[in-house]
């Protein structure tokens, strides 16, 4: 096909999609009352729920730490988990700020990337979980204390504790590797897609693919 032929066809297509309907002037008066179908209320709702849950967990860990301040192992365990919960709280607050500042008048690629970032919040959570892998012993120590009132660090089998400590160290490179792998650029890797879809559903992986499309679109 020649350039001119294509241009003529594009011009005909342009005419075809150019149509207007009667403008509903009454609508203007009602616009303030209209509810947006694209409203970010759903995202806002879930971020608030997560924030409340994280604050409750943080309060629990704080009181746990205070009650067990005599035990160094339990204090350190609670402090480690509190650190990760604080990161989650910060992440949630940042998301809520982004939602409140969301603006459809931004450049298309910027706006769509911001929307995808909000929709793929679960990725941040998964990456945070990956970083916690070497600290799994902290969960075990707190779990034993909460459910069985046993300080497993002082009362547990020393070989078992040593094996867990070695495992924790071995988990460090695994944790860092996993943290780096969980990102939009790796969404085509099957295990990453399965992990993300099992945590956030197909919509999240679709959103991440769209993020890659935006990046490709912006690059020359």
């Amino acid at each position, binding site marked *: *096909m020649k*350039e001119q*032929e*294509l241009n003529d*066809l*594009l*011009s*005909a*297509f*342009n005419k*075809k*999609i*150019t*149509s*207007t*309907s009667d*403008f509903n*002037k009454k*609508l*203007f*008066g009602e*616009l*303030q009352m*209209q509810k*947006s*179908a*694209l409203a970010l209320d759903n995202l806002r709702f879930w971020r608030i729920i997560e924030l409340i849950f994280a604050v409750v967990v943080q309060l629990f860990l704080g009181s746990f730490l205070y009650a067990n301040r005599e035990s160094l192992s339990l204090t350190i365990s609670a402090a480690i988990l509190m650190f990760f919960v604080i990161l989650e709280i910060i992440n949630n607050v940042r998301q809520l700020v982004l939602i409140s500042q969301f*603006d*459809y*008048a*931004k*450049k*298309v*690629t*910027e*706006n*769509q990337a911001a*929307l995808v970032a909000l929709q793929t919040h679960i990725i941040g959570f998964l990456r945070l979980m990956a970083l916690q892998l070497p600290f799994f012993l902290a969960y075990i120590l707190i779990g034993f204390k909460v459910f069985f009132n046993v300080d497993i660090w002082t009362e547990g089998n020393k070989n078992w504790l040593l094996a867990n400590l070695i495992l924790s160290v071995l988990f460090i490179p695994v944790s860092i590797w996993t943290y780096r792998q969980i990102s939009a650029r790796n969404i085509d890797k099957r295990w990453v897609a399965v992990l993300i879809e099992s945590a956030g559903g197909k919509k999240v992986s*679709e*959103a991440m693919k*769209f993020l890659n*499309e*935006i990046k490709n*679109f*912006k*690059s*020359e």
Partner: protein
Amino acid sequence: MNKDNSFEQIISQHQGILWKVANLYCQNEEDRKDVVQEMQIQLWHSFDKYDSNFKHSTWIYRIALNVAISFYRKNSVKENRTTTLENEEIAVSPAEISETENHLSLLEKFISELKELDKALMLLYLEEKSHSEIAEILGISTSNVATKINRIKENLKRRFAEEK
């Protein structure tokens, strides 16, 4: 002039933009009406923050395209990508379809299969917007606009050649 009046005046002048964007992204009439209404809502909410450094059309295109793409993605209408615009005028028997009409129908199909952002780019190109304005609306470099338009047009030509 109060907010209502100035808003009404601006939108009335540019209402064609909203319908054009809706026509490009939505396959059925109901979706088109919904998306245009959504555009109006977002335009209204954004009106107070309108930056007078930009043309009205730039502001409207940004919001219209952002809303249409978001709406399109939210409703997961990708399965309809290969369908063409509803138009009874071209719904004639194959024997009656001229080569031009056939090509136009194919062009609609190819454009409907473009990625969301490429569609936006083509729409602005068809509107004869300058490369700098297209770049400003989409958020890409001016040189990238030219590169991408050429790439899409070459791709369209290749698709037509494959159909022959």
